[in-house]
């Protein structure tokens, strides 16, 4: 089973990367600034890969991802701070709450398509944020303070690996194929007996749940959950990563998350330039390469092998 062997290889590679990074962090080779950025990269990967499931693989244009992240952040914070529960419960709770909300919201709104769905999700993200802003129990406009820092490199790394594996396996399953068929041609998919609403809601729920995980991790790293962190600008940030990496490419999202997080870290001293570079990147990528840097292809060793060998085959296998 070549497939099985590949899974083991990638798992081993992950553990090796983890071991090296963790050693470097323990030995203080990687200072606090880079540690922060590595954690942000991982959180951004979770956000981007989960948004890619909705936008890239299922073809539903959602731009309210920050709203689900906010739900995860606040529910997670309530569980650890107010109810004194362990971190793992907070992560599961944050994911469940965001996923449940995604399900509730997805059910009616996913009947809309294209632009309407985009604007509805944007509106929903803002409604979630404004609602949080008006709940004094979680700190209202001044934010939810005093959250313990439970998030560390180990948590974010393994949750990122888990997210990527989960979504990758989902896409390669029957359900994932159904989601892709919805993206390719909804009417044809329906004619073939795919319950399009069910799969749209399923993708939306899973995407929202992982955004919730990212939110919980985020809040437990920065000691605070603040409504201003979850505006639609945050949703656009995530969207930029997904689009740059390629709608429908998990490895593209990962690469773009790493790239953009480090670019914005490098531009930390010039926040105004950061957004200008972001926006120009979006425009230029869309004009010259509307499918994103990696299109819907996955980066794999096989691909490099083909590039080297010059043996061009038109198709790329998903795994």
């Amino acid at each position: 089973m070549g497939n099985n062997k590949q899974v083991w290889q990638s798992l081993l590679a992950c553990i090796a990367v983890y071991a090296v990074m963790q050693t470097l962090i323990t030995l203080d080779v990687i200072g606090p600034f880079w540690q922060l950025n590595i954690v942000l990269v991982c959180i951004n990967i979770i956000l981007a890969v989960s948004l890619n499931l909705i936008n890239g693989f299922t073809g539903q244009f959602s731009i309210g991802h920050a709203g689900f992240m906010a739900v995860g952040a606040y529910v997670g914070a309530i569980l650890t701070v107010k109810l004194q529960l362990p971190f793992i419960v907070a992560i599961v709770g944050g994911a469940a709450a965001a996923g449940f909300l995604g399900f509730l919201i997805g059910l009616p709104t996913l009947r809309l398509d294209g632009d309407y769905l985009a604007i509805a999700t944007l509106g929903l993200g803002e409604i979630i944020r404004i609602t949080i802003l008006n709940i004094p129990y979680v700190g209202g406009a001044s934010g939810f303070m005093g959250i313990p820092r439970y998030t560390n490199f180990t948590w974010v790394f393994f949750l990122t690996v888990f997210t990527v594996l989960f979504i990758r396996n989902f896409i390669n399953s029957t359900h994932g194929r159904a989601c892709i068929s919805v993206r390719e041609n909804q009417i044809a998919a329906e004619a073939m007996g795919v319950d399009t609403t069910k799969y749209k809601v399923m993708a939306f729920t899973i995407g929202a749940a992982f955004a919730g995980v990212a939110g919980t991790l985020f809040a437990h790293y920065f000691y605070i959950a603040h409504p201003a962190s979850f505006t639609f600008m945050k949703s656009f940030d995530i969207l930029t990563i997904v689009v740059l990496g390629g709608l429908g490419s998990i490895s593209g999202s990962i690469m773009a998350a790493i790239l953009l997080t480090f670019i914005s870290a490098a531009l930390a001293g010039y926040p105004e330039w950061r957004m200008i570079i972001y926006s120009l990147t979006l425009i230029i990528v869309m004009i010259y390469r509307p499918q994103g840097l990696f299109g819907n292809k996955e980066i794999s060793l096989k691909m490099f092998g083909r590039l080297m060998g010059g043996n061009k085959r038109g198709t790329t296998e998903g795994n």
Partner: protein
Amino acid sequence: MEFTFTQQLVQQLINGISLGSIYALIALGYTMVYGIIKLINFAHGDIYMVGAYVAFFATTSLNLSFFPALLLAMVVAAIFGVIIERLAYRPLRYAPRIAILITAIGVSLLLEYGGILLLSPQPRTFPALFNAEVYTFGNIVVNSQQILILAVALSLMVILTYVVQRTKIGKAMRAVSFDTDAAKLMGIDVDRVISITFAIGSALAAAAGMLVGVYYNSIDPLMGILPGLKAFVAAVLGGIGIIPGAMVGGILLGIIEALVSGFISSTFRDAAAFAILIIILLFKPSGLLGKNVREKV
């Protein structure tokens, strides 16, 4: 002074109508562009910001009075609109819709943060161009700025309706919006019509920007985000692509917001707009004045 419920209601209605006519002006640009190239022009709210800044510099640096400044703001914004369409949207005319939507988001961010970079993020005080006179009728207060906003907005809408319904270019715009390919076959220069649509829409947004500057006395580079989104809600509310729909939707949204902030809580004002959006999208996605169109295979 005792405020009775009716008086407060009338007062909020007046506030709502003047705010709503601004939304209506912005919504017109959204709806016209959507009607022609089926694009939600996210950058439209930022054109409104550009208009406000041009008016600001026209009145402070060039010492122009209200109407010349308004005209200048509209012309500059129209040029901005045409350039944006030319550089960012035209190359994507035949690309997937999602690509052009993302480009629009990019243009919007570029204008916002370009504004912050060039004009500083600090809000600026818009000069008082008129002595704000306050008229009181019983307990109801109307100020001269509200009357000005309403008068300018209504006149622009009348002019727009005339242009769209009675002139040759208006006819071309309606033709392109109805069926682009057929219009092209009839010899209409579609690219030119699209440019003119962007110009008109942007000019209206700039007028709204200047009116807001006069009304609230404060402008900043990010001022366009929220009114832009809300004007879009207004356009959807009235039925996107339908010009009278944008006017009705804008004024209705203004009134609803004023009522929510007057009777419930001003913090829920913004949520109200989005809640309306969701409700209208769920129950009548074609908008109040829209007709239901069945999807064809």
